[in-house]
């Protein structure tokens, strides 16, 4: 029990962010019309590509002789980039279509 309380109070800031983000995510999505669900899924998909930051940190801080971290980190950065770049480009392609016919 004490350790749980200690854990909570140590990470209070992160827990605040977490809870507020959960509600923010729900709030933002509930206003999206169904016509935009596909681009939305794709756009959200690109945003979780932010996991690449972790891959970059692993890769950047890897010791020159830690081949496991270097190899896996390299792979992770490639995969993360695919997620980010592919996600944003695909979303943009879809949204471009919505824009064109507005004129």
């Amino acid at each position, binding site marked *: 029990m004490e350790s749980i309380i200690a854990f909570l109070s140590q990470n209070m800031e*992160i827990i605040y*962010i*977490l809870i507020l*983000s*959960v*509600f*923010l*995510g729900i709030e*933002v*999505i509930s206003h*999206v019309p*169904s*016509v*935009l*669900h*596909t*681009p*939305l*899924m*794709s756009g*959200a*998909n*690109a945003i*979780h*590509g*932010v*996991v*690449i*930051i*972790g*891959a*970059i940190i*692993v*890769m*950047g801080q*890897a010791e*020159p002789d830690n081949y*496991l971290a270097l190899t*896996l*980190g390299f*792979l*992770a*950065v*490639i995969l*993360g*980039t*695919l997620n*980010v*770049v*592919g*996600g*944003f*480009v*695909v979303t*943009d*392609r879809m949204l471009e*279509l*919505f*824009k064109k*016919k507005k004129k």
Partner: protein
Amino acid sequence: MEDKILDIIYLIGSITFIIGLKGLSHPDTARRGNLIAAFGMTIAIAGTIFLKRNENGEAFSTSNIVLIFVALLIGSILGVLGAKKVKMTAMPQMVSLFNGMGGACAAIISVIEYQHSFKMGDYGYLGTVLAGLLIGSISFSGSMIAFGKLNGNINDKTIPGQSIINLILMVALIATGAYLTTLQEPSMPLLGMLTLGCLIYGVFFVMPIGGADMPVVISLLNSFTGVAAALGGFIYNNKVMLTGGILVGSAGTILTILMCKAMNRSLMNVIIGSFGGGSSGAAAIGNSALGTIKEISVTDAAVLLSYSKKVMIVPGYGLAVAQAQHACHELETLLEEKGVEVKYAIHPVAGRMPGHMNVLLAEADVPYPKLLEMEDANNEFNSTDAVIVIGANDVVNPAAKKNPQSPIYGMPILEVENAHNVIVMKRGMAAGYAGIENELFYEPKTRMLFGDAKATLQKLITEVKAN
């Protein structure tokens, strides 16, 4: 100093993600929103590379930075090529593929951080790392299966007792993960087994789920990857990963629930696949008790449409498969030139994922105001002379309203039977995804027009021109 600037960059990044998602809530601002989020991502990545300092205040070594840029370049080239080449109809599997990449990225980070976490002796941290591995690898293998299924490479397969096997596997995985946190020394073999188990679970999880439920699963896996990214944020105490990941995690969950609602199914039902799997094979139709099927010739259909005042087009999955959206738009403009009012009735789950039909029709330059959402369309069917149903089936099945025994009972449908005439374009008499009869086809006012949607539309266009 650099660390503080980086914190500010991460703050800006987090804000751009929120603005980006917010922008996506309206067609006018959606594209800008997406670009804003992309900008935020770019500065967050660049900031991390150049400003990130380790515990001793050292920057990344030059050789590592070079390697990072090589990896970024490879990923960008592959990503842009894949994203530019993909056809609009293949969009759902592409999203799934990219999602899987993110999941794999999160899983790999966890594998590397596993050993690191022992040096720190922080077990909360270790638990986070393992949770990231669990969720990331399930998301990866699940997304790959979803990709394969949507791409037509993998068929639905259900092992008897699948849901029980899945449950046992899940419990075993969590138990293994929990056991790993109690060890005093890192155990790579056990970690390897855990990873393998998670990958297998991902496969088992998606394998029995039917094609039409796939969007729900992709959306769910999307939110999984979001959570995996947020766990990465915990690991590195990195706020932009945390906010980005959680935003997507919660948004994805809500989106998943919205999709389930549109199909009138519970999430549990989709996952266990009580009518999803097995029944996707075409149950033969032709039950004479329901009446007879009447066909219409292309010429008669053309005449009927040309002399209607108001025509409603109901596009479905079949239109997407046949890539007939351009032909459909051509028919629409042709009829409009003849003074016919033409509109589209879009069911929320028409196409392969929600909103997919809107994208396909947008690609064919169909004006936005012509697309009616379900409720508006249902109000207009009474005054509609002719409805053309193109490759849709379950979403226009009156059994959803009339027959409480029907598996789709309660699903909101497009009430096309209220229109004066109904033309149904279908490849053949196979049942729809739910594998059930559609009484609509036997209604006296319904006429069937068999054939490939694109070819038939083109014939129809020629005939309408001749009229």
